[in-house]
């Protein structure tokens, strides 16, 4: 069960936190990178709304300052995703997940629609609550095995409690996976295409990564 995502291709050492790329994480990393580049270079869509009772329509234009801010948040979100994809440390992973959560809130927080803001607030609450199982899981892994490095944990020297794994998954689910998706779906109605896409991309990527982590540990 050691090489669930393929053999690591190369390592990047940041002290005890070793970043490593397997074919699996590399695939995810590249996708995150592609969409981050899209966000960087693309102008946002202008969402069209129909004015009822006639043939008229209007498009929602995003102001320049809002555009800049949301682009910044989306790029931060993309970078956080990339970090979460390749990090080889359980606690570092949970930190990246929390960063993704807060960036997601940021991407839509600037939207002036009350409905979207409500959804963002509720989502933010869940993301904040999700840090509790996340950090608890990481701490329990550290305490019961004496290490946080995924490379060491993958050697299966010590059994990790099932509860720690379950807590980790629950924490990640709080970042927008089913069945806690409703707020995220509503956030998605906000105009500004390449930015809101980062919201769903990040949660999908993180879910994929946590699946690997769980199978790896």
């Amino acid at each position: 069960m050691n090489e669930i995502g393929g053999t690591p291709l190369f390592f990047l050492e940041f002290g005890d936190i070793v970043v490593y790329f397997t074919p699996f994480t590399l695939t995810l990393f590249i996708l995150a990178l592609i969409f981050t580049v899209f966000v960087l270079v693309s102008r946002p869509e202008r969402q069209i709304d129909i004015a009822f009772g006639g043939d008229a329509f209007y498009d929602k234009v995003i102001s320049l300052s809002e555009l800049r801010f949301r682009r910044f948040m989306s790029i931060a979100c993309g970078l956080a995703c990339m970090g979460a994809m390749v990090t080889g440390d359980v606690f570092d992973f949970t930190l990246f997940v929390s960063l993704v959560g807060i960036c997601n809130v940021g991407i839509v927080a600037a939207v002036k629609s009350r409905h979207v803001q409500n959804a963002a607030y509720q989502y933010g609450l869940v993301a904040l609550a999700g840090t509790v199982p996340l950090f608890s899981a990481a701490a329990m892994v550290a305490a019961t095995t004496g290490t946080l490095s995924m490379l060491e944990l993958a050697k299966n020297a010590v059994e990790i409690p099932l509860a720690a794994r379950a807590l980790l998954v629950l924490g990640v689910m709080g970042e927008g996976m089913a069945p806690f998706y409703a707020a995220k779906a509503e956030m998605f109605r906000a105009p500004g295409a390449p930015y809101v896409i980062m919201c769903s991309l990040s949660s999908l990527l993180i879910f994929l990564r946590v699946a690997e982590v769980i199978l790896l540990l």
Partner: protein
Amino acid sequence: MIWDGAIWNEYSVGLAVAFTCALIGFAALTIERDDLHKLLLIDLVETASLAVIALVGTDLAEALILPGLVVGIAELLALSQIYLTKEGYQHNPVKRLNIEVMMISPAPVIISTILVVYGIILSGFTGGGIAGLGIVFFLMSRSFTGDFHVLEIASGVSWALWVASFFVFMFFPEWWYLALMGSAIGILLKVITKMSLVGAMWGEPE
């Protein structure tokens, strides 16, 4: 038998207590309907997770609690601002940043004095940094024209400084002294700008 005293070590007892606390917090969250109270309750539950981290019991726990705490505080801050906006609680927004309020306010003087004194007590380069920043903060608050952007930029710069010195640490360990000082100044700037941001945001009551 699992109730064997040998297996029920201190760690497990601690976990039992922490998760009981978390359970109570989550149970409260399940029935709470008010948005503001939800936020406060979550902050409470966060404490339980800090307890679980603390149970690691080594210096690693210290190193993990700090980020854990910061995440909680950061998200709390962002969410409370969103809450204010979404509920429309923004009364007299212009007056709060008004320079007159800052002029008559003794807060900058006090904070600066504390900073300077503390910096002198600490001595060394870092202490100097603190004291110097205390003075800078005093000057800034005196001539504060309500340009919020400056604070944001300062906050960004300090963040960059902090991260840059981390990379120096990582890749050029022989320059560790420089990195250490850089990060010390970075974190000070960071703390100070963010304190003043919060101060400016919530300001003084009318």
